[in-house]
């Protein structure tokens, strides 16, 4: 009889644990550790930083952009900015915003800083990163971001001009450095992202 009760208790415990775990998996489609490798970048002030060390213990929204983009990348950046403005007070210091350029040749730290300043972005919670080709490619691979150069031409001054076809994405990383969700960047559902951030912040 005792063995039967023990088995029932054990089975119930397993069932409850499974339910809790499946609940987590249902809420977020991804659970990918991004802390296994580090990449070196310069931030908007040309200070060398290690990513993802700079987001340690923070909930993070990340987007990869290029500043010569007149449409999609500014929309994505603006959406992240709107999310920051709508964060509840108790989460304001728990969330970090990272923008990494996949066009580092043109997007120097100074260029990224101007891109942010014209949009009134506060660097207390934001970092805009520019890196070398290797580090940039590794982070793109980590976040499944693709960027393909197109329409390359030399203008009258001999300067190379090009557009980039690119992944349109905002990524959510939890406090433990795990990628939990990807969203469309330029047409993001801000309510959904805010709910997911609140879920992680609980």
């Amino acid at each position, binding site marked *: 009889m005792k063995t039967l009760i023990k088995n029932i208790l054990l089975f119930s415990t397993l069932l409850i644990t499974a339910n809790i775990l499946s609940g987590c998996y249902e809420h977020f489609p991804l659970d990918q550790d991004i802390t296994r490798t580090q990449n070196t970048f310069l931030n908007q002030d040309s200070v060398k930083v290690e990513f993802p060390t700079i987001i340690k213990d923070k909930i993070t929204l990340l987007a990869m952009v290029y500043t010569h983009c007149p*449409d999609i990348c500014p929309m994505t950046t603006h959406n992240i*900015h*709107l999310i920051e403005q709508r964060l509840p007070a108790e989460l304001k210091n728990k969330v970090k915003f990272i923008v990494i350029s996949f066009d580092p040749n043109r997007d120097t730290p100074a260029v990224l800083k101007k891109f942010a300043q014209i*949009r*009134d972005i506060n660097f207390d919670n934001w970092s805009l990163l520019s890196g070398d080709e290797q580090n940039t490619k590794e982070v793109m691979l980590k976040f499944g971001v693709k960027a393909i150069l197109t*329409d390359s031409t030399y203008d009258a001054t001999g300067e190379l001009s090009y*557009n980039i*076809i690119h992944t349109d994405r905002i990524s959510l990383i939890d406090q433990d450095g795990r990628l939990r969700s990807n969203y*469309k960047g*330029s047409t993001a559902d801000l309510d959904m992202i805010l709910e997911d951030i609140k879920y992680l912040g609980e």
Partner: protein
Amino acid sequence: MNLLIAFLMIFSNPSDKIKIVDPWMRVGAQGQATGLFFKIENNSDKADTLYKVEFEPAGLVQIHETYDAGNNMMGMREVGKIIIPAKSTFELKPGSYHVMLMKLKQDIKKGYVGDVALYFKNVGKIMIKVEAKEMMMKQTMEH
């Protein structure tokens, strides 16, 4: 005679045939690029074509289209012109057709107002004043 001239001027005013509605440009930093958006109302009985745009603070101005390149990727390409059929409205908007203002010679900050020249095949040149915003208010509200 004066009345006749005034009458003719009213009816030859391009803004009667082509009306530009809700123009705005996105903020942009010196040396970088940004987008210009507006609606074109063609009230005439024949199609017209927007083929050139001038904005003095931009080193290069092109008419572009943002398009879905598949696999969650977005691209952008020059289209050169936009044809607006008779009695119709064409909207240049984020994520779609836009005027790309490149090689900005100055910062275009929130609240900046600049003169833009739009060139149409039939009605000719139309000058508009355009204010810089981070994003059009309606789109912000829609989120």
